[in-house]
């Protein structure tokens, strides 16, 4: 027994020794930045002096969510090759994340201390999640006056979304869009329901109701599906419920959740009423991808999860004309949820890598030649006003012109409200409850209370 115990202790010692080795290595790696930084800076200065271009040496890693063609290795490798022509000593390794398991991979990497240097995603993750928890680098030096003014000229909401409440920039944005919905043009035409949509592709709540009725009368079995089986594509159901009676999702300061306002309750109640009388359907077993598939195969007459990129993705697989429209609102002035995507840098304690990462981000987002190319690869719009119409002269120009008309309807980017992760789960659970028969006010009050508690706890 004693021998066994001794052996276990010996084994533990071996493990601890190995762990110790690991710790030492990590310590060395952590201690190294100062020296490396100096070397890198010296190298950069030398290079700058010799060639007039700053090119520090570093190996950096980029993790990217599937944002347009940033999920495509050929595209990203092409960008890196072009980057390396200018900065040959910065080597970029890429890993591709998906929205199903990407967050888990990042969480595991944060806890294991193996985060990438650069990550591409939206402010709800980079700013209000990882940034708020002190894992990201302040990108203030990328946000110089020129960049700030240029991006603010597109929308002040973008600038606000990329910084924390205390003013630290955790994201440098590349592209943006507004999320909208889409209809099956031919089905609407057959039902004589196109008359309810304005020329500028907006419509009122009243006319939306009339269109649903017209579709049902023309024999359309399932007009649309309010999906609530998970958080995927939940911006669509939020925008639908908000816009019906012009509700706000949070207060202006992003400190409280407000869908239990009269307007919010009215919108949610309207949705429940429509599902009860069969004008609309709901499915607590479906997420946005399922609903999009139903739309694409012609089962439904509309989708609540649409944008320019989705149209490009589904263009070849639909046998009808997907016609993008804004969400219906009582006053005919929609407030559309925005999507903002850009880059952040994880604070790995290595100044050389951080510097190299900033150079890489600057190249992808701001380089006169590469910037517009990067934007076009996402299928969205540039955040920099100076890029103008990035799609001018391309085959996408006409399609993107439609979506650019929705830009003035970009609403407040409330996704950066603290407690966002809890809210997302609570939202689809709220929809499941109210469609399942729970009183709308009771369920919404509980939802708001849970979200407010999460927001308070996150601060």
């Amino acid at each position: 027994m004693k021998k066994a115990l001794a052996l276990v202790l010996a084994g533990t010692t071996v493990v601890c020794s190995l762990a110790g080795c690991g710790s030492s290595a990590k310590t060395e790696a952590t201690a190294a930045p100062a020296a490396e930084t100096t070397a890198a800076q010296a190298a950069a200065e030398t290079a700058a002096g010799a060639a007039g271009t700053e090119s520090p040496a570093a190996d950096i890693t980029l993790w990217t969510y599937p944002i347009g063609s940033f999920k495509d290795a050929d595209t990203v490798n092409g960008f890196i090759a072009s980057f390396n022509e200018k900065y040959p000593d910065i080597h970029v390794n890429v890993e591709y994340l998906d929205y199903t398991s990407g967050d888990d991979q990042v969480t595991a990497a944060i806890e294991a201390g193996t985060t990438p240097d650069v990550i591409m995603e939206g402010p709800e993750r980079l700013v209000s999640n990882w940034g708020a928890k002190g894992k990201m680098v302040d990108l203030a030096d990328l946000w110089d006056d020129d960049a700030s003014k240029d991006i603010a000229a597109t929308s002040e909401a973008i600038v606000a979304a990329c910084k924390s409440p205390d003013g630290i920039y955790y994201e440098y944005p590349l592209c943006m869009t507004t999320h909208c919905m889409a209809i099956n043009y031919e089905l609407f035409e057959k039902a004589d329901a196109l008359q309810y949509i304005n020329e500028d592709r907006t419509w009122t709540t009243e006319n939306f109701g009339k269109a649903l009725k017209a579709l049902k009368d023309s024999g359309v079995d399932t007009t649309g599906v309010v999906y609530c089986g998970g958080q995927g594509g939940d911006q669509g159901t939020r925008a639908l419920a908000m816009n019906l009676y012009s509700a706000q999702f949070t207060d202006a300061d992003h400190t409280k959740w407000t869908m239990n306002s009269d307007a919010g309750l009215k919108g949610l109640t309207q949705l429940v009423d429509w599902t009860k009388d069969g004008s609309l359907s709901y499915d607590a077993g479906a997420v946005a991808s399922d609903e999009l598939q139903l739309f694409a195969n012609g089962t439904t007459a509309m989708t609540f999860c649409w944008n320019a990129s989705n149209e490009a993705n589904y263009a070849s697989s639909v046998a009808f004309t997907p016609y993008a429209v804004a969400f219906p609102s009582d006053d005919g002035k929609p407030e559309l949820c925005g999507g903002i995507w850009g880059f952040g840098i994880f604070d790995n304690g290595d100044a050389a890598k951080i510097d190299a990462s900033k150079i890489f981000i600057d190249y992808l987002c701001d380089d006169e030649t590469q910037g517009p190319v990067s934007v076009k690869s996402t299928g969205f719009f540039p955040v920099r006003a100076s890029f103008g119409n990035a799609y001018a002269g391309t085959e996408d120009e006409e399609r993107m012109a439609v979506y650019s008309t929705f830009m003035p309807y970009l609403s407040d980017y409330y996704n950066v409200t603290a407690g966002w992760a809890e809210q997302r789960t609570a939202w689809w659970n709220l929809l499941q409850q109210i469609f399942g028969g729970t009183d709308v006010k009771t369920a919404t009050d509980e939802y708001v209370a849970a979200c407010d508690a999460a927001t308070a706890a996150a601060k």
Partner: protein
Amino acid sequence: MLKKNAYTKRSKALVWRETVSAYLFLLPALIFFIGFVIVPMVLCLVTSFFNYTMNDYSFVGFSNYFEMFRDPVFKKAFWNTVVIVVVSVPTVTAFSLWVGSAIYQVNAVSRSFFRCIFYLPVVTGTVAVAVVWKWMFNKYTGLFNYALTHMGVIDNNISWLGDEKFALWCIILILFTTSIGQPIVLYVAALGNVDNSLVEAAEVDGATHLQSFWKIKWPSIMPTTLYILVITTINSFQCYALIQLLTSGGPNHSTDTIMYYIYYQAFKLNRYGYGNAMGVILAIIIAAFSALQFKMAKSGNED
């Protein structure tokens, strides 16, 4: 005397050398066992007493445990997990025994065919299984709704995974199909190893097929049954992937399980300490259930 001591010393040295050799052979496995089982278990237990999040690590004593028992979602998840275990374990075991009994005596080709059929869902990836079932359960284009509406069983399509009345049972059904493969293979092997002379002797003495099964075969395959009970119980308690892929715990938490809720708290909300506290409780429950099964199977065997 001196000679005897020298002999003893030499003997001890030999024993010591052999022991050291044996343990050295075990050392690699031991390192992995300690590193990947013991250390995480200890860390899980320790961190369950901390408010361990992405940016906090403060000692909170038993507050995670107190919170857990006040958490209505945890209670719901616990109840769902119990339902899954209580329904799955007996049905999987009974069905596997029935299929095993039916096919173990047929010819080798047929036996292999049935084993292959029942084992197929086990070797098929969980994601692939989930995708196929999700398609069959689809409210609008699914096979079940198509068949049932055309047979006149239902008037309106049902959202099988989106309806609180059906969702958990759908999960149990899928879990059932992916759980029976291994028990059937084990039962076929165990029944084939039962001493046939005992069965023949009993039948000569006038025992019916049922009597020879319960009095001879059943006790003989009891160790296999015990193993099947334990692994099915553990698998049922750890039901996570199907929930993650099909329902995310919905609708309205009706398919939340403890494992999924641990994942949700740890990976979605970054509350590692709270998740670990739930993990500790789950481990205790599984250990208690397994011990109970061992005890019952042992006493049954002694009878």
